């Protein structure tokens, strides 16, 4: 987190008087399920390959490497979900995410064209969803994953209302 020091950290703060609203820790679990699912495939394939190609000691090493990778993956998911944050200011929605590449996106409500919520099977089971905000610009890429579904629905309703209230053309 330390790269760039205070200045960078300050640049990604929420507007004065507001706090980042963090997403559900279940996003972390969702990411872990993804990592483990992917990890199992890699471990099995890696083990099969290692058994054929490498001598016995090498196979052990390969398994160690894969387990280390899983641990790193675990850590990354933990950092990832904690990096997400959003806040509803009076005229715009601010959101931030990213650990290595930090991003701050400001979407004025009057620019919103539509807002949608998606949740795949696993996300539904965890009770979280992804909110996407669409403006006329395809480059906007504003989404908030891991919002508890009930919150997501009310947030979408608030955004839609705010969008209509402040809309002027496009």
């Amino acid at each position, binding site marked *: 987190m330390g790269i760039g020091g205070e200045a960078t950290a300050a640049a990604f703060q929420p507007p004065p008087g507001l706090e980042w609203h963090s997403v559900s820790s279940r996003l972390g679990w969702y990411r872990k399920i993804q990592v483990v699912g992917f990890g199992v495939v890699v471990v099995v394939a890696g083990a099969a390959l290692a058994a054929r190609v490498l001598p016995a000691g090498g196979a052990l090493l390969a398994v160690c490497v894969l387990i280390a990778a899983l641990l790193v993956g675990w850590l990354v998911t933990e950092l990832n979900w904690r990096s997400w944050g959003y806040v509803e200011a009076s005229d715009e929605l601010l959101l931030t995410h990213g650990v290595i590449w930090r991003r*701050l996106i400001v979407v004025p409500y009057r620019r919103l064209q539509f807002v949608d919520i998606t949740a795949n099977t696993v996300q539904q089971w965890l009770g979280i969803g992804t909110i996407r905000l669409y403006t006329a610009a395809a480059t906007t890429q504003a989404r908030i994953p891991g919002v508890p579904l009930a919150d997501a629905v009310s947030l979408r309703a608030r955004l839609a209302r705010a969008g209509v209230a402040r809309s002027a053309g496009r």
Partner: protein
Amino acid sequence: MNRPEFLPPVTGHPPAGPVRTEEPEPVGMPPDGDRPAEDTPAVTFSEAAYRLHGATVVLRGVGIIVVTIGIFLPLIHDEAFLITGFTLLMFPYSGAVFGVAALAWSRVRFWVHDENLVYQSGVLRRASRQIPLRRLQGVDVIRPLVPRMFGLAEVRIELAAGDRSELRFSYLARPMAERLRAALLAYAAGLHGGTPEATERRVHRVRMRDLLAGLLLRVPVMAGLALCLFLGLVWAMTKESGVAGGLAPAMLVLGREVGWPLVAWGRFTVSSSPDGLRLRSGLLVSRMRTVPPGRVHAVHIEQPVLWRAFGWVKVEVTVTGYGDGRDSAGVTLLPIAHRDVAYELVDLVFPDASLGTVELVAVSPGRFDHGGSGANDVVFVSRHGWPGRTIDVVAHERAQSVQLVAGPWQRARGRATVYLDTPSGPGRAALVLPVRQARMLVEQQVARGRLAEHRERPHSSQWQDEPAP
């Protein structure tokens, strides 16, 4: 009107008046250039349904037959028997082609109903499109070579609706096409469709020699020319036929980089009128585009390195409707012109922008690319690039969202990138700044967007509002 019950209920029925192809009294139109407004009597597309010009049938039919002959003749050219058979077959075939073309033509009808343009067509599958004219993004009048010889023109309209968002009227008589264009733009502005055509003022005309010089004076083209010269010399000395093989692709590239733009942008004129900017261009296919005011999101000014000595620039704009899809390069506002002309034009696109007076603050003094940014109440300007140079101009009231991104390298150096998102097209302004300034810029941009929204826009507000309640 033979099957009116087919029409969806929202469409309304064609007006009771007779179906017309032409104006009662066609008016002679002067050739390209400024056209006085008084010789365009009111056309009311809401009072009668109109057809395309009858000659469309002939042009379409002949076109299809020529293509058919072109495909089959090379296959059968050496067999007298086949040629006779083919010729005999062509008679009923031509009849069928003309019949279908005539039928298709007879089914096309268009009129204006309640600020909507209704376009009915189709032989087997009848279609009726209803187009809200308030959503109109631009109108083109295109005159391809052959229809032009018959005094015909095509009208093409663009809507902000993604795919299939254009509609072509091919072909109409030239005066009719002009009239339709004017009427559609008037309806789009919320005026009565019979409003006489707005008067226009020529802003700039690109001289042919400037265009040619500009197209040649670019690094890839110069390199291509040098390569051609070199290969030609080698060939002259060695008479090695393989060298000619290398010449062909080089010539192709030159044709694409110089020949095609020359034909497309020849006789380029920009005029301004109350209903928008009018861009005329084209040597073979002459095209007139109208970009209504308030439809432009961003302007992108490019300056290839060799143009800098002359102060020449190229100007492109991002317009909804254009830009995403068919014409991914956006609309070229000026293929080549002096910087001052370009600035003047930007002021027309974004009223009160006065681009020339915007002071650009260097991102980091002494940097080799002289990158900088600045803003006033209307626009945000950023300049970057080296040795070629790019200036992006985004209107505050048009910017969609603002992003601040800092990657690991940038963070180590205390920097971040600010992006202003505009609808797709050539203009996405990005600026690398010290991180504290970057965040300040984000806040400033958001505040400016908020202010611009509240400012009065007497000139262009008509264009941006949704239909009035």
